[in-house]
Structure formats: C-alpha cells, structure tokens
C-alpha cells in the first residue's frame, strides 16, 4: 500500500471543485454516494480527500439544480443505496465546467511557472 497516504497529507478539495468531480465520476454511469467518494479518492490516486459530510449536501445541491437525479437501488454487495445519475443538463454542465477548469488550471500553471525540481 505504497500509495496509501495518511489523512493529513491529502489535499482538501477546493470549494466548488467537488461538484465538478461528482459530475465527472457520474459520467461512467449511476453510482451511490459512497461509490462517488471512493472513486474520487481512487482516481486521484489518494491525493484528494472527500469530506463525506459535505458530499451529501453537494449531491443534494446538484440534484436540486437538475444536473443529477437519484433513485434507490441495490449496491453490488446487495446493500440498499441511493444511486445518482447524470441528466442531460448535467452532462452539458460537466462539459462547460471542465473546459473552464482546464483554462483556469492552465492559467494558474502559467502564473506559477515551470515545476521546480
């Protein structure tokens, strides 16, 4: 478990980016809250820490904006869970936000300059 980092080392998610990441994870298909959190952690190779306590309000918010929709279902290990699915509106939002984020990240990257040693 070499990639496993301690909780302190992980980067707390920037406000607002969590929404984007949730949308991104859901593009692969319906997933429940715990699955989303776990996917973010795994896909970021353990760099990003999802505060589970703020995950659900975020899901709530996205649902309210009609970017995602939810439905109770059964998990792979036969547990009851609430599955979230991307809506058409959500997909569009994901594309927009992704483009924006890339530009922002590139811009910040230019400002910060080349990576040091």
């Amino acid at each position, binding site marked *: 478990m070499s990639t496993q980092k301690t909780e302190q080392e992980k980067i707390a998610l920037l406000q607002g980016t969590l929404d984007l990441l949730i949308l991104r994870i859901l593009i692969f298909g319906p997933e*429940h*809250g*715990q*699955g989303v959190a*776990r996917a973010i952690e795994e896909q970021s190779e353990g760099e990003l820490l999802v*505060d*589970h*306590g*703020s995950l*659900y*309000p975020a899901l*709530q*918010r996205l649902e*309210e904006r009609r970017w995602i929709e939810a439905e109770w279902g059964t*998990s792979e*290990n036969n*547990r*009851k*869970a*609430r599955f979230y699915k991307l809506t058409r509106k959500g997909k569009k939002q994901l594309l927009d936000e992704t483009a924006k984020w890339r530009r922002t990240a590139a811009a910040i990257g230019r400002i910060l300059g080349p990576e040091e040693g």
Partner: protein
Amino acid sequence: MWRRKRSDIDFEEEIRAHIDLETDRLINDGVNPEEARALAVRRFGNVGKARETFYESRRALWFEHLIQDVRYAVRTLFRTPAFAIVAIVTLALGIGASTAIFQVLDTVVLKPLPVRDPQRLVELQGYHNANPNGFSYPLLREMAARQTTVEGIFTSASANIREFSIAGRAPAEPVAAWLATGNYFRLIGTEAQLGRFFTEADDDTSMPAVAVISDGFWRREFGGQPDAVGQSMRINGIAATIVGVTRPEFSGDRVGTPVDFWLPISFAGQLYHPSSLTASSIWLQPMARLRSDVPLDQAQAELSLLWDQLKDFSIRFRGVTQYRLELLPAYQGLGTLRSQFSRSLWLLMGIVTLLTLLASCNLANLLLVRASARAREIGMRLAIGARRGRLIRQLLTESLVLSLFGGVLGLMLAAVTSNPLMKLVSVGENWRLSLHVDWRILGFTASLSLAVAFIFGLIPALVATRVSLNTALQAHGHSHTGTRSRSRAAKLFVVSQVALSFVLMTGALLLVRSFWNLTHQDFGLKPEGVLFVELEGDGTNFRVLLDTEVRQAIYRRINEIPGVVSGAVIGVGILGRWSSVGESSVALPERVVPGVKIVPVSPRYLETMDIPVLRGRSITEDDRRNGTRVAVINQSAARLIFGSDDPIGRTFASGTVFPSNFMFEVVGVMKDHRFGSPREPFGPLVYVPVVQMPAGGPPRLVLRTSTDPMQFVQPLQQGIREVAPSLKIGHVSLVRDLVRNAARQERLLAWLSGAFGALAVLLASIGLYGVVAYSTQRRTQEIGIRLTLGARIGQIRRSVLQDTLSTVIIGVVAGLAATVIMSRYVQSVLFELTANDPLTIAATSCLMLVVGIFAGYLPARRASRVDPVVALRYE
C-alpha cells in the same frame, strides 16, 4: 420551492447506507470488522452537520430566503419612503373600496342563512296555471302531514302589531313581530341561545301563548339579562310568555328584515283576523328542509302532486287547469331585498375592481421607473451570480410587502367606510343588517392583495431583471439598459390605464345621465309644491281607515283649510311609496283586457297633481256613491281597451265578466303620467271615484298650497282630528321628494360611479404624465442634439405631444372596445339611455384627449427648454 420535498427519513437512510457500504469496503481492505464501522463513521465526519446542511437546503432555505427577501424589501422601501407611501396609499384606496363594497355585497346578496345546512332549504312556490299562488294555513298543515319526501314544511309570516307592552311598559322602539309554525326553528336549523323554541305542541290553539325573542330585542329591552325568559308581553290583547332567545346571527328567513319576536302561528286568528287560519286566507310562503336521502326532483314531484290533490284547501279560482309546485333554492332565505339590490351592488363591485386594476397599473409604472433607477444594483447582483428567478422572486416580494401593507390599511379603511356605505345603500329601507369582518371578508382582501401584487409586480420584475450585465455595470447613474422593453411595458400600462379610466368614466357618465333622465323626465304631472301625507289609525278602529264616507269627509275638510289651493284623497301610495298596485282586468262585451291598474281617487286629484285631462272631464263631487259609476282613463288605457275608438261614453266592467255589478262609464281621458315608481313604464291606468270603490289601503292626501306646503301640516292635523278623531298624520313629504327617494339607488350609483370615474381619470392622468415626463427626460440628450442641429422648439414640443396623444388614442380605442363589451352589464340599470350612447362616448373620448394634452404639455414645454450644452454633457 414547490417541488416535492425529500423526506428527512430518506436522507437519514442514505447516510446509514453510506456507512454500511464504507464499512464493507474497509473490511474488504482488511480492516478488522469491529474497527471498520467506527472508522467509517469517523471518516464520514460530522453526521449532524451534514444533516443540518440537508435541512437547510430542503426546508428552511426557501423560508429563510423569504425572510431575507422580506427584510430586504422592507429596508428598500424604507430607503424610498415617498414611493412606499404613495404606493401603499394607492393600494389601500383600491383594496379598501373593494373590500367595503364586497362586505356590503356579501351581507346583502351573497351570504347564506346562518343555519345548519342552508343548502337543503327550499321555498315552496305553487302555481295556478302560470300564476304564483301562496298557501292557506290548512293547506300547509295538510301537505305537511301527508308528505313523505322532505324533513318537514314550515313557515313564518309577519304579524301586525296594534298594541304592545312588555311587563306593563312600552317598548323602546317600534317592534316587529312574526308568526312561526311550531317546527320552524327546528327545521330552519338554528338553536336557542337561551330557553327553548316552539314545538309542534304550540301549533295547538288551546296552548297558552309563548314568544321567542331575537338576540337584538333581548339586548335592547332586557339588557341581555337571562331572566327575560319567563317574562310576559302583551300583543294585541294577548299575553305571551317569553320562552327562548335566538342566537345573535339568526334573524329569521328574510335577510335584512327586522324581527323582534316570534309568536306561534296558531295565534294568527287572534292577532289578525279570525279567518286567518281558514282555507280562505292565502297568505303563507312556506319553506321545506330537504332530506339528505331524497333527491330534489323526487320531493318536488310528490309535493307538486299534493298541491294538485289538496286544491280544495285553497280558494278555487275559475279557469285554472294546471296546479304545479316548484321547489326553489332558499339557502339565502326568502324576500326581495337581495334581488332588488344585487344589480347595483354587483355593478359597484365591478367598478371598484376596475379601479383597483387601474391603481395596480399605476403602481406597475412606478415600479418600472424604480427598476431603471436600480438597474445597476440588479446588474451587479446578476454579475456576482444571483439567478434571475431568485431576483424576480425578490422583486415580487417587494410588491407583496407593498400590497400586504396596502391590504391591511385597506381593511382598516373598509372597517371605517363599510357601515356608512351600508347606510347609504339602505337609505329609506327598514333594514337590520350588521356587517361583520369574517373569514369571507379576510379571504377576499387577502386574495385581492395577492392578485394585485402579481399584477403590478410581475411585469416590472421581469423587465427589470432583463439587464445586460456589461452595460448595466459600465453605465454610471443613468443607464439605457433594458430601456426598450421597459418603455414598451410602461406604454402598455399607460394604455391600460387610459382604457380602464375610459371605461369607468363612460360608465359613470352613463349612470349620472340615467339618474338625471329619471329625475328630470316628463312625469306627466307637476310634483313641485305638492304635499303628500299618509294617514294612520291609532289602533282602536280599523274600519275608519277604509271607510269611504270618512274619505269623503276628509276630502271636504282639507279643501276648506285656508291656503289650500286644491286637495285630494287617494286610496293607495304614489311614486314609489307603497305604490305597487295589482293589475286587474276590465271586461268589455266582446273581450277581457288584463293588465290595467284601477285606483280610487277623490275629486280634484287630477287638478292637485296637475295631470291634464285631454278629453271629457275629470272626477267631480257630482260623482256620488250611488250614482253612475264613472272612470277617467289615461291614454295608454284608452289605447289598450278601446283601440282607436272614442272611449268617452263607453262602458266597461271591472273584473272578467261583462256585464257585472261593477260597471264604469268612461267620462274622461287624461294624459299618461307616472303613477308608481318613476322607472315603471306608463301603464294603462284607470281612476275611479273613491266613493264608488272600496279602497285597499289607508287614505293618503295630496295638497297643492299657495305657500310653503310644510306649513300646512299643523292645520291639516287639526282638520283631520275634527272629522276622524282616531286618524292621525303619519309620513309627510313633498311629492318632489317621493320622486327623489324613489331614485335613491340610481343616485347612489351615480354619485359613487362619478367619484370613482373621476378618481380613475386622475390616476390615469398622473400615470400618463409620469411616463411622458420620464421618457422625455431620457431623451434629453437626443433633444439637445436635435436643438443643436437646428430643430425648432415647436417641433420638439409637437413630437412629445404627438407621442402622448398617440398613447391616449390607443388607450381610448381599447377602452371603447371594452366599453362595448361591458355595456350589457350596465344596460339593465340605465333609464331611457342606451349603454352605447354616442354622446357619452364622444364626451369621454374628448375628456381623455384633453387629459392627454395636459399630461403631455408640461413635459413638452420642459423638453423644449433644454439647454443643448447641458443636455450634451448630461451623460
């Protein structure tokens, strides 16, 4: 915020599911099962916080936003107090007037009787052929005993009081007594506040007399003391014991009619006439309470059949082939009060509704202007990420706060004005109606305020939030953002205002002219300077009131009074004061002519009222009791009865049989003149000598005098006392005032609609001025440029005026269309005037144009005085 709420339990469950899943994963990763759960919970973080955030988003948020919005709205309004005050007062006037009129309308016209299940009450209306016919008491009893389809049949009727005392003392006010069947209170569905009501046992004439008193009477005469029950009253020589008091809201089945107490109907024989309870007296208008398990048509079928079978319990009229009975809805009680006033009240309701709408348009314009002043603020808020829907909600909240303040103030205004309004409506009527603010009124005011807020708030909110961010943020002070849609919306509201005020003003002018027509018509007689006097008995001798010899003596005596030019006696009332006379038939050898009014008058009646005799002669003192019966007929009667033949010298019989014992020879033809209410058409009218025909009612006198008629009341009283000591003078008025009084509803409508119409025009002109002034101000720069380029001042003025007038003309055209559509609602109350009267419409159009010129002139003048240098530096 209207979406289906996700439940708390659902959310809790999701958290629990998460922790279960996380525990599974940790175990999978190799964590010891006991620790796994604790770790999962810890990793979830603060469950409480998540829950809190959830609640906020789900439930409290919209509410919190509302509170935020309301606080923000109140703050904003406080910052511009002048605007807030103007808006709130405008709204309060509109809402207050609407509420006051609605309250009167509701009380007089709409409210059901305050009894249990009023919807199940019906009125029994019997017919002989097509003629409505009432019930005799035996018929009522028999039908009630035989029927099986209704809960019961009951009735009440007013009683005549000649003599009355409570425990030996006289009452504080004249009393109104009613008779009721023993089942009356039980079936109408009301309970006693104190004591008991009648029972079926009280229908037995051998029972001692009892009385149920109304709450008002109880408070007035007994100070609301419970010991009223058991006390004794004397009514026309009968001693009745008070057994019960009704609830305050119950006042019998005829809304508005005063009731002080009820006696069992079994005493009618003693109170009225011994024959009252026999089959020959048809005087009752019964009601029934439907059974919940029997449909209306089944009850109607049975009762109609009984009405036919029981015809022997009534007077048999000749030629009746069909006996039919209808059950009419009676949830609002019986009586004519409601139908009589409903038209005027509905009309007033319509007028104030339009006025309120107009006030809303005015406010909408104010809000539009404000919105342009706030364009920067709104642009800023949109720029930092506020959603448009949220901003619209916020602006609507401001409108709502305004209209709620307006509504509360309006409600207070209505509380102050509704009682005087009620008095105004009921002038000359003996009503006892009290106005209460109940949930119906509150509901009306609340929904009106809400509706108004949306009408004046929504469009400005939509327009205000359609702001282009860049321009809104760049422009300093004045911005041009959204001006196109804003000025289009402003124009729309101004056009609506002009149209609405056009409708209201046209309506007002129509009602005023109709009132004028009614009171200034050619009555066919001269009402000026004529005194009208009603005589009444002192209760000791009824015969004197109806005696033809006494009338003759009175006639002679009043003409001896010095200063009396001419005096006459008439057996019925005139010009709307107890002047409805039943129509009878007259028979000729070859045919029967129905629809003629026959009225007994003394000699000199025509002379006193100045009714011209066109042919033949008038009724004179030579027409004696046993002489040839004579008649003077009006032009309409001559036409109807005799066609183009010369009526003088012709003979007819009153009634349907010729010849009969009542034969009259036509000796004169008089001009058509108003006899009954001034609205009634000139009908066929026949005057016969008062000595030759038994009269229906107590005598009335008319006197034409050489000086002020009112001075003659005293000598008249003395003269009457000499010839008939038991008669005295009752009501006294000038004939002129009878006419005025008969037109009081029309006067009320004319005054109120006139006032509302003027207010409407004022509001519309303010609105027009505001919009023109504002748009001119916005054009300052353009005008400056045009002046610099050599435009003449006159051209500038003309262009502003043209702009204004085109708006007015569009409004007038729209108003004209609306007037034509609405005219049918007004037509029925108009007297000798069509609702599309061209003169009235032309007058209103001119008025609106003049208003438009005035509203446009001031801004036009100001525009032409623009200093080009200042104007160009304006932005």
